[in-house]
């Protein structure tokens, strides 16, 4: 079976700094896979490469067999990859429901003229976007905030909203960049349960960045570890926990800290 995501010898250099070095991996459809590594090890850069924010200096990235390296971010989203950000990036001037249906705009059929004239075709699409957006909020327990400003939501709910917004684009692959960052251990735990719920209800593949190993141990059957932009280990939680290189990388990192 072709993997859903395939990265082949991907390298990203920023001037003299190699943020990602010769990185390869595969994700199968339906998987929940974690990407962990110490501070500044290149995790976010890998997501930025997959979503087209950066173009690989070398190597290729495939989504279900299509080469997506070098494509524009919005095109890649249209092909089925959605993401959240390490630092929450909600649209402050849009309410919660609007934040979500922005993610449906790319599937809009009506052109701008029929939108301005509110032709029946456009009205139907707009109604449908609102309806499915609302259903999405309901299924994620966010419906009561629908008409609130996103910044008025509690922190944990803002994180969920970012996930809801990404789901609105109908992705096949969902990339979550440290979704539990800044949360208490119990909130982080709850969010991980939430992510498992999302994985099952939306029949997705999820690639999840986490800084702390502990958080993903319970829910991710497979974990990839990088350090200094390089792949250093891969396996199930137990294997990772006992891997010498991983221990060294994490201890080394905390030595510097």
């Amino acid at each position, binding site marked *: 079976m072709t993997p859903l995501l395939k990265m082949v010898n991907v390298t990203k250099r920023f001037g003299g700094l190699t943020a990602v070095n010769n990185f390869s991996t595969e994700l199968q459809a339906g998987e929940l896979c974690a990407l962990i590594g110490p501070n500044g090890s290149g995790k976010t850069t890998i997501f930025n490469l997959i979503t087209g924010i950066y173009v690989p200096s070398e190597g290729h990235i495939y989504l279900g067999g299509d080469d997506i390296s070098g494509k524009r971010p*919005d095109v890649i989203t249209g092909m089925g990859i959605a993401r959240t950000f390490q630092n929450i990036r909600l649209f402050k001037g849009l309410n919660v429901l609007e934040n979500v249906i922005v993610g449906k705009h790319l599937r809009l059929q009506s052109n*701008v003229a029929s939108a301005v004239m509110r032709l029946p075709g*456009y009205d139907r699409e707009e109604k449908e976007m609102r309806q499915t957006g609302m259903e999405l909020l309901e299924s994620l327990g966010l419906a009561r905030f629908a008409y609130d400003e996103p910044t008025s939501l509690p922190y944990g709910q803002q994180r969920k909203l970012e996930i809801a917004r990404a789901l609105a684009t109908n992705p096949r692959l969902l990339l979550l960049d440290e979704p539990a960052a800044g949360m208490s251990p119990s909130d982080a735990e709850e969010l991980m349960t939430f992510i498992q719920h999302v994985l099952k209800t939306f029949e997705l593949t999820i690639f999840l960045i986490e800084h702390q190993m502990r958080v993903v141990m319970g829910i991710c059957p497979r974990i990839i570890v990088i350090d200094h932009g390089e792949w250093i280990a891969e396996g199930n939680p137990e294997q990772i926990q006992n891997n010498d290189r991983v221990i060294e990388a994490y201890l080394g990192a905390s030595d510097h800290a």
Partner: protein
Amino acid sequence: MRLSRNTILTLIALLVIAGLLALAQAFMNPYLLRILNLCAVYSIFAVTFNLIFGYTGQFSLGHAGFAAVGAYVAALLTLSPSQKISNFFLKPIVPLLANVELPFLPALIIGGIVASLVGSLIAWPALRLRGDYLAIATLGFSEIIRILLVNMQPITNGALGLKGIPAYTNLLWSWGALAVCLFVTKRLVDSSYGRAMRAVRDDEVAAEALGVNLFKHKMMAFAVSAFFVGVAGGLMANLISTIDPKVFIFTLTYQIVGITVMGGMGSLTGSVIAASLYTIFLELLRPIESQFTIGSLTVPGIPGMRMVIFSILLLVVILFYRKGLMGTREFSWDWVVNLIRRLKSGKKTGSSGEVKS
């Protein structure tokens, strides 16, 4: 089809306003008419700037240039062939334009289209830039347009400008154009496309990650905006009857930015209110720039004094209403109805003897 209360109120309000404007057109003196026309023209300038900056977040300073294009196109298309001959006495006009004379409506629309094309052409490279760089680039392009107007003498008559442009602009044209501009802009920003534009304004990276084509949506805002700026330029040319490149120097853009900020970024109502207040105040302050006497003291006229006062006013507004007069609020009938209800109930409690009607 059943019409909602708000639609009926809007229709009634439009009819009343149209009636009032028709009356004003018939009975007001030309000086006051000119001010009212300018209110509409500046309102269009502010509303369109709001579309680009307030809603799409692109700090473009090309308005004066787009207005110049619209003004010159409309002027050249409405000037009679004989007027053209007397205008272009230094160098004759290009034969292609010598004998055209169009009615006002097509002249305005063509002016808008050409401005929109020029705007899009400028936006093409400029939109790769962000923030301050976009501002500098568009400002530069706007000045290039003005310099071209000075130098393309066989088409524009150069620095001499164009005189005797037929004074077609009246209140129904100018306020009618404003109504169309408001309608289109409001419908656009409230649509899915407008939502995408607002998302781009709030966070480009996130918007793109959600599948919004940044370039396309910025371009759309530019093209629509520049079209109406061009139309407003045409209205202005056929209002003041004499234009030259100096009318469109960059201070015009600064005024538009100031007005829009004053009214509130993201409020079309605010743009119209601020533009009208600005135009009226500027006229009221005109005496300041000529010599006047207070008692035995004679104060010499200081040219540019009005702009100083406007700038101070702008500062005051920004200091006390950080988001402009209206913030992001819009006029709505619900607001009016609520206000009337509140006033009514206030009256009831105020005067106990009053009979409830």
